[in-house]
Each structure stands twice: as C-alpha cells, then as structure tokens.
C-alpha cells in the first residue's frame, strides 16, 4: 500500500481510488456541502433553479445564515427572505438561520467528522480540517455544480507539514502560531497546498484553538488546513452529537511524502500582531506596541469561539477598558454565547466595558456596529485586514489573538498581553 497523507487518503476515498498523488486531477464525491446566505440560496440556489435540476442529495446540504443577519438594511432583509423561502421550498432540514457563523456552526451541529470530503461556498471553509475532515472553499457557481451533481474536480494538493514544538507560553495562542506562519511564508506561502498542523503544541490544543489554525490556512493561500484527529477530536465531536466518529482510520502515514516541512518553536513564540493591511505583516507584538487603537473587536469564525472569549476574560477581569477605545464582542454562535454567559465570562467582559453584539460575520466584513470609522485604527481577532474590508479604505486594522485584542481594549493601545497577565513582570 502506498503511503499517503491524511488529505490524500480522504481525497482517494472521495474519488473512489486506491491512492492519489499530488498534482493529479480527480473528481470527488462530496459528503457535505455548506453554503451561507451570501453565496447560497440567492446565488447558487438561483443558478440551480435556472438550470432546472434538483439538489443531488438534500441531506448532504447544510445552509447557514450568518453574513447579512440582524441588519435592517433592505438588501440584507431581502437576502434572509430568499434564504428562508428557498430552504422551505426545497425541504432542506439542515438549516441554521441566525444561530452563528457557518464554520463554527457546521461542526457544532455534528456535520463534520474525520474522513469526510466537504465543500463550502466560503473561503474559510478550511476550518473543518481541524476535525480531520478535508474541506475546501469554492464560489457560488462552483457550488451550483456540486448541488447539481454531487461532484467536484480537484487537483490533489501537495502537503506542507507544520510542526509546532513545545508548550505555548501563557498569553500565547493558536492565533499567534498562524500569524507567525503568515509572517514567515506569506499569503501565498502555501498556495494550492494542504497545510497539515502537528507537533506537541498542536496536540495540546483544544478544538477551538485548532480551528483557528485551519481557519487561517486560507490566509496562506492553502486549499485547506488539516489536523490529524485524536481523542480531543473524538470527545469534542461526541459532545456535538456527531455519530460514527472514526478517529483510527483517518490517520496519515508517517512516511508519506510531503512537499515541505516547517518547524515552529512553540515555547519561544511571542504574541504576534499583523500590521495593516495584510496578514503577512505579522511580527512580534512588541514592534507594534504603543499604537493607539479606537476599536478592539473580538469576533468572527476565527476569533470569537468559547476559548477566545475565555482568553479575553482572563485579561480584562477586574479591569476597565480604555475610554478612547470601543470594545465589541460578538460570540461566534448562540451556543458559545450561552455557555459564556453561564460561565460568567460575558459578565466579566461587560463589566470591563465590552458591548456584546449579536452573532454573525459583522465587523469582520465591515458590517454593523463594529465597522471601523473613517480613518480609525482598530485591532481584531478576525482573519483578514485588507484595505476596505472591515471599514472604509481610510481605516486601518491590526490582527491579533483574543489576548492581544483584550489587552488593547484595556490600555487603548497595542500591548503585549503578557504584561497584563503578569508574565513579564
């Protein structure tokens, strides 16, 4: 039997082949297709209806609304109406309206498990790889092809193996690991590749933290990010209600060939912050320290999971936000919001002056209350800081971990979060 990486094994199974090699173009059968209110019913759904063909398997389709929700804008309201109507017309049962952000909802509702070949009409669909699935992002037209045929062509990607050694220091998180990678190899450093994360520091991470790594594989240009499933995966998925989770089968071969290996010293890693306006402008937080910020935003699929909120609470507990800085927190899903409320985390954040916003993509895509003002500089726990994304072209955005965002909210400027945790005293 030929040695294969985990990605290659999943693609081979989906393509109905014994093995595949990088560079080969294969047709894969899709196990799960996900689309949201922006790419989904109003676009892919409409294109499918124009073609006049049915959905290949509606039980394999998941529709989630998260982009234009909780927004009075008439275009947004119309988009929600279209979503609800289309889903009702087609009789789609896997529909999660306004309950949270798609990449976090999808596993939370039990749709993702090791070995699945999945396609999502959103670039951060790579997130599901944290659970040992292979998931790629596509556009709405491509999704129409999947809806009609249940298949998609794919070029088997080379694998970039990232090994993070040691134990991350207090105040350092998965976000710092992925920003470090963005800084080191750049936003096309892994173009077309599968980024496979491993090493002791990754094995020690919660699923929330692992999802940050796979989510931002998109920022490396990768086709997907993936992490070998283990008991943490199995336990988390059991709690999410996924059935028949098979961790043992879905392991890559140690001797499988990879295109490149990168080692990151986890123990020596300092918090990272990406300066405007590209994630690859990442560097040690000290370089940007002292930059005044008008807004600190904890949000998005990348940076408002339960562990992100816990990290922020650790920093702000018993403190007050700077009077010069707006502080917004938009929990990634309702489940996360409810657990954070129960654990007292939301209260800690609110007592520090944070305003809790409704869930949704919101500030990450420049929508809602957390949209940056003209000329404003902000810091956020989101994934991209391109010009004009989170606010007008005149605004500037830094990216950092939940720790770094919370620290900036308190001091009103970019700050090494370890200073507030007493680590650097």
């Amino acid at each position: 039997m030929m040695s294969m990486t985990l990605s290659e094994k999943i693609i081979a199974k989906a393509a109905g082949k014994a093995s595949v090699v990088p560079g080969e173009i294969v047709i894969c059968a899709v196990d799960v297709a996900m689309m949201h209110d922006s790419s989904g019913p109003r676009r892919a759904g409409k294109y499918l209806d124009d073609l006049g063909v049915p959905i290949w398997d509606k039980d394999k389709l998941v529709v989630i609304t998260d982009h234009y929700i909780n927004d009075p804008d008439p275009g947004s309201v119309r988009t929600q109406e279209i979503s609800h109507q289309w889903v009702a017309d087609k009789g789609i049962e896997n529909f999660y309206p306004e309950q949270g952000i798609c990449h976090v909802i999808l596993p939370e509702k039990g749709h993702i498990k090791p070995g699945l070949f999945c396609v999502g009409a959103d670039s951060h669909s790579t997130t599901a790889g944290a659970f040992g699935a292979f998931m790629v992002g596509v556009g709405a037209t491509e999704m129409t092809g999947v809806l009609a045929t249940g298949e998609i062509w794919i070029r088997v990607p080379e694998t970039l193996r990232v090994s993070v050694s040691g134990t991350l220091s207090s105040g350092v998180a998965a976000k710092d690991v992925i920003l470090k990678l963005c800084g080191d190899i750049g936003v096309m450093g892994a173009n077309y590749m599968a980024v496979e994360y491993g090493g002791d520091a990754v094995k020690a991470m919660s699923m929330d933290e692992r999802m940050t790594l796979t989510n931002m594989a998109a920022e490396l240009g990768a086709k997907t990010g993936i992490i070998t499933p283990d008991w943490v995966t199995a336990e988390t998925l059991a709690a999410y209600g996924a059935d028949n989770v098979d961790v043992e089968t879905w392991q890559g071969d140690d001797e499988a060939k990879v295109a490149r290996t990168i080692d990151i010293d986890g123990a020596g890693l300092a918090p990272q912050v990406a300066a405007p306006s590209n994630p690859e402008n990442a560097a040690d937080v000290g370089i940007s320290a002292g930059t005044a910020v008008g807004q600190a935003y904890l949000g998005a699929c990348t940076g408002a999971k339960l562990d992100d909120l816990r990290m922020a609470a650790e920093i702000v507990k018993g403190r007050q936000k700077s009077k010069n800085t707006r502080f917004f927190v938009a929990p990634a899903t309702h489940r996360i919001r409810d657990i954070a409320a129960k654990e007292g985390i939301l209260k800690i954040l609110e007592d520090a002056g944070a305003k809790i916003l409704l869930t949704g993509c919101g500030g990450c895509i420049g929508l809602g209350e957390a949209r940056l003002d003209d000329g404003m500089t902000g810091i956020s726990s989101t994934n991209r800081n391109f010009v004009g994304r989170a606010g007008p072209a005149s605004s500037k955005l830094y990216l950092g971990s939940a720790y770094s965002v919370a620290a900036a909210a308190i001091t009103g400027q970019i700050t090494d979060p370890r200073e507030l945790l007493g680590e650097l005293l």
Partner: protein
Amino acid sequence: MSNIQGNAHVYGDNIDTDQLAPIKSYMNMEPDVGCKLCLEPLDPDFAGAVKAGDIFVAGNNMGIGSSREQAPMFLKLLGIRAVLAKSFSRIFYRNTLNFGLPALVCPETDKITKGDVLSIDPLAGTVENLTTDETLACQPLPEHLLSMIADGGLLPHLEKRLKKST
C-alpha cells in the same frame, strides 16, 4: 474560441477580493451598478477606463481573499475578456474560469505595461504583445477545463451536460 485582443490594465501582486468587490458594491446594488466600484480602493479610475475586450494583467496571487465571485463577475461585466497573472489565488482562479473568463498563468507579466495591446489565444495559452512585438509564454489551461471554457463557463457547460444525460 477565437483570439482575445484588447488593451492591458496592469496591476501588481495580491490584488484582493475586498478591492475587486468591496462589500458595498454588492450588498444593495445590482451587479451592473456594483461593478463600477471594482478596484475602487486601489484605483478609482479603473472601472471607467475599461473598454469591452480589455485584458486584466496582475502579478502574483491574483484574487486573494474571499470566495465572493463578484470579483471576476465585475471584471467580466466591465468588459474584461481575459485575466493574466503570474499566479492566482485558488478560489478566484476557479471562479473566473467558471464564468467562462480565461484565467491564464503567465510568468512574464512584467513585460506588459498599461495600455499595451495584447492578443491572446486562450486555448493554446499564448500571449502576443502587439505593442512591443513580443510573444509571452503562458501555461495552457488544464485539459479538463477547456471544454467548459469553450462552452462559456460552468453553468452553460452543466446545462449541456445535464441535458445530454436526460
């Protein structure tokens, strides 16, 4: 599919989808209006300068960012008929081809300046710069995509395929 001939609009590396399709350009706007905001954060004059048949030329990692396909849709609506780049971001690459708009990997885009007249054979993967009288090499499109491009994109291609099978 015949040759594409038009003026080159030349930009650099990492042209991202937030610039090609700023959120306000598709939130509440029809595509024929929204496309006028294409590339506005980078070059507000771009949309007005494009004429039907023109060619978009970029450096590395063209179309980085979101999966929003308004990015290639707007280029096509403005009149762009082919996109050349040293390399593409993968979702943008697929989205562009799915619209029937040839996206060609051309390592030599540095040899093209704004306003040059180019003639492209998308199926053969060749680019002639008529202004400088140079021929530039491109990677030919993967074989399995040629028929889709010839059909005008994924949706017409699917229509043909699904009709044939019924």
